[in-house]
């Protein structure tokens, strides 16, 4: 069978997209002291065949795109997911009204990849 090439424009290739989370939007502004929000980002886009190096694909993802190109209905493309995240510190009041500073890992998407 011949591979099916789907047109993929640079704009819909898997990459980090901008997402600013404002704590006020989820009603948490009364107990989160700082920050008021942060740039969380998210991953979105396609993992097309052939996977370029910039898409940080695993060997499994490369093979999956190959199979997907042969059978687009039976095998999905690999998923576009965060592969590098960074932490965020938050200052907030807990349920006992204590002031807490906490360091949270994996809060900001820095890099995406096809997995």
């Amino acid at each position, binding site marked *: 069978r011949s591979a099916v090439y789907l047109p993929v424009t640079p704009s819909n290739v898997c990459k980090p997209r901008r997402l600013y989370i404002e704590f006020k939007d989820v009603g948490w502004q009364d*107990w989160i002291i700082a920050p008021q929000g942060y740039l969380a980002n998210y991953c979105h886009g396609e993992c097309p065949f052939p996977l370029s190096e910039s898409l940080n694909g695993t060997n499994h993802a490369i093979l999956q795109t190959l199979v997907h190109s042969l059978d687009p209905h039976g095998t999905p493309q690999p998923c576009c997911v965060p592969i590098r995240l960074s932490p965020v510190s938050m200052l907030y009041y807990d349920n006992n009204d204590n002031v807490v500073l906490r360091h949270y890992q994996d809060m900001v998407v820095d890099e995406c990849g096809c997995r």
Partner: protein
Amino acid sequence: GNGEDLKTQERLFLNSLGLSARPKPSTHRRVPSVLWRMFKRTSTRENDTHERDPCMVSEYGVRGNIVRFVQDQGRLVSGWSGSCHGCVEKYMFFNMSVLQPVEQLSLAQLEIKFQWDMFRTPRFLLGPQALSVSLYKVLRATLRGASHEAHRRLVLSQSVQLEPEAGSLTLDLTALAQNWRKPGHNYGLVLELQLHPVHTQATDIFMSQNLVNAIPLGPTVTLPEFHASLVVVSLNPLQCRSRQR
């Protein structure tokens, strides 16, 4: 359905923050300046790709990813003690159950900040003051009539020289706080303050004129206002993976 999903998602996220529910808005405490400084430093460091160990609290020199200012939920036990002039006792209680079982306690430091009420303090006492501070661990508390009787053991006794405006005292209570995490082991602390006016020129005049009894020690002397906080640093190993791994 969507509303329920939102609540479930929120609960999952709050659980990951170590919260049982969304904290209720209240008359919130002031944020300690040291926490603001730490927050600003860590926020700046997060933008630095060459960051050092993110789970090290360099201000206290211990490992941890959570710093809490646990507030004192105790109360004044007695105003002026009969056993000495210028004594005051305060029962302190720090709720250590706010720490999740998975958290490893790295540090518990008691910070007592003293502040003189300049309007109520006699002028001749506005010089440096010596303050005896005794700290007792409450082993057992029993209710007798309307008052509590605390069976206690002396943890620390020391003298602090206070400047006219303010002063502070820092005590390491890590070992004690470890023990408080065991169920039924946290009866709190009793803090006893005793004021000893340091001989200044003003008090010497009183002494030389044989007016020592005129020095209004007792209920007319105001002990400094004080505020106690327990700084607790802990590490949640699930949320603070080693960078080497």
